[in-house]
């Protein structure tokens, strides 16, 4: 990977340095909004991420109000005010928040293109295998090395658990792109593997973004 490739990627992010987060209703209920279009909102914060972000809306059902808070700081770029006070179905897109990308996110996005991806063989839910999970719990995922043939994941598909064996270049688990129990689409990268010889290159990318990105 040469500098021009990194330059090209960075130029793309400079042209549109924003991320967009859509908020879909997490369940059914009557909706009430607490923000307006173009309003500034705060994301979750605090040392332990214990301070909720701005309250975006609440869903009322079964005698309970379920407040939904912003996870990112940014601006409300679109909002479905036509639904105010109405009964909504689950999964309805109601708000979009636009936020400036952070260095960490830029690095992660670049690394996603650079690391060796291990892709989801099927649309399914994934979990680390018991052995890998215990090593991650003890040492952190960047200290866990994998090689072809290792049982690294459990694929939970249609209530059946199937072991998934690693195929690809040996290396360490540098990035984890899935959350246990959340469905991943087929061919989406689950983890990013960094072969030992690529570590200096990865570090160079990280340093460069840290130095150049404001």
């Amino acid at each position, binding site marked *: 990977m040469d500098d021009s490739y990194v330059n090209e990627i960075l130029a793309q992010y400079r042209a549109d340095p924003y991320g967009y987060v859509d908020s879909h209703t997490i369940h*059914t209920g009557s909706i009430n909004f607490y923000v307006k279009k173009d309003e500034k909102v705060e994301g979750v914060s605090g040392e332990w991420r214990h301070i909720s972000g701005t309250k975006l809306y609440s869903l009322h*059902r079964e005698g309970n109000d379920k407040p939904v808070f912003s996870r990112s700081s940014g601006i409300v770029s679109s909002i479905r005010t036509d639904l105010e006070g109405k009964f909504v179905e689950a999964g309805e897109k109601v708000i979009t928040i636009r936020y400036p990308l952070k260095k960490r996110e830029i690095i992660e996005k670049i690394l996603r293109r650079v690391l060796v991806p291990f892709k989801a063989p099927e649309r399914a839910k994934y979990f680390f295998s018991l052995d890998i999970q215990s090593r991650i719990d003890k040492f952190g995922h960047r200290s866990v090395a994998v090689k072809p043939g290792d049982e690294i994941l459990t694929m939970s598909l249609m209530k059946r*658990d199937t072991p998934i064996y690693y195929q690809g270049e040996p290396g360490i688990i540098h990035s984890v792109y899935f959350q246990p129990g959340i469905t991943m689409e087929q061919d989406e990268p689950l983890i990013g593997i960094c072969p030992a010889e690529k570590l200096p290159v990865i570090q160079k990318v990280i340093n460069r973004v840290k130095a150049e990105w404001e």
Partner: protein
Amino acid sequence: MKEKVLIANRGEIAIRIAEACQSLGLDFVLVYTGADEDSEHVRRYLDSKSNKNRAWRISNYTDPNDILSVADYTKCTAIHPGYGFFSEDFRFARRVTIRNRPLTFIGPKWEVIKDLGDKINTKRVANKLGIPTIPGTDAPIYNEIEAEAIAENILEKQEIQGIAEPSVLVKAAAGGGGMGIEEVLQPEQFRRVYRQIQNYAKRQFGDGGVLIEQCLRDYNHLEVQLVCSRHNERVYFGTRNCTIQSTGRQKRVEAAPGFDSSCFSYDFDPDDVLNKIVQYSLKLADHVKYDNVGTWEWIVARDGSPYLLEVNTRIQVENDVSARISYLKKKHPNLIREQIRLALGDKMGYSQKKIKFKGACIELRVVAEDTRRGFQPWIGTISRFDFPRHDWSAVYTHVPFDRPYVIPSDYDPNLALAIVWGADVDEAKERGRRFLNEVVIEGENGKGEPILTNIPYLKDNIDNLLRF
């Protein structure tokens, strides 16, 4: 007040319930998840342009708040849980019926589900009534050392009895439908399997309890279909045999009646055994004052000894197999219709004497799966789907005939239930073979490989029906 039913399920059963409601003149609504948007059970009833929307998107079929909020908003008066999901959850049934705006739960009373819906408790109650059950634990085990001691004890007893290949089954106590069950042949394998099942049970059901039972070999798996009312009326609609199952113990071919002498030379009197399991089932139903449809599941060993396995306190996938050998006023009953009618408080209107049994019926579950690779689910898009139409067959499916359909990976890849019936078992088998030869299913997965279904497996297994 006119009743309105919320159908809290998906796929073919949602369609069958909707049709049963229509035949009873009842209004209804359905719920669905994003993954099921293209299912026929949604498309058929979704009319987003009008205010008469009958299909409502929820987050999950197992979110009671979502289901109840839709029920209230659409002014439903009853909830039909179908099978799976909440159908055997007494807490859900209780919550539906005891609330500010009570609804009718279309199923047994929650107290009855509590007594029988839990297979562990069922075993305890059955043992008290002298109804035979499979040797093993009758409470969930959470301790590995205790579990290992129990397994060793069961294995030892089998060796003393001279049983060839003694083994135990380790089951997720909160599981069902054949999921979360593994066999252990050697004591030294036990801990690994125990941990595997416990881990699976915690993840899938939120409870790591396991059951340990003797693994019976060389048996048939039978069912007794009961229909009961809120007015202390109880009848049975024959027996079924569902021995042919996938390696994950999910049923694939079912037949009624439960045994037939033309298929096999049994070591026992088949009529006598069938009568025995019917009487035991009714005895337990009477004891718990069972008040809706339910299935009593039995294991019958080669020597004819029956063991109660569990009670399914719900409508069963294969209910129509029983209906097609049963006649009420010379017509096949619709057991889903009966279930709704009786749950809403109707009297049965007939007695056991009025139910006549005639002929034989087979259900073939058409599933997208690789039967040669442990019944591995197949995921992909169906491009062509068609079934023959005969006056001796019925097909229940949520897969559309007129457009491509992507099989959602969130649920089992069941495509259709095909029911064929005839004057006797031979005729039903012959028609089953003919039916399967006429089925058309085409499609491919993400890699461009053609669809895999279990149709060859179904064809191969028709001859094995009702045999040991």
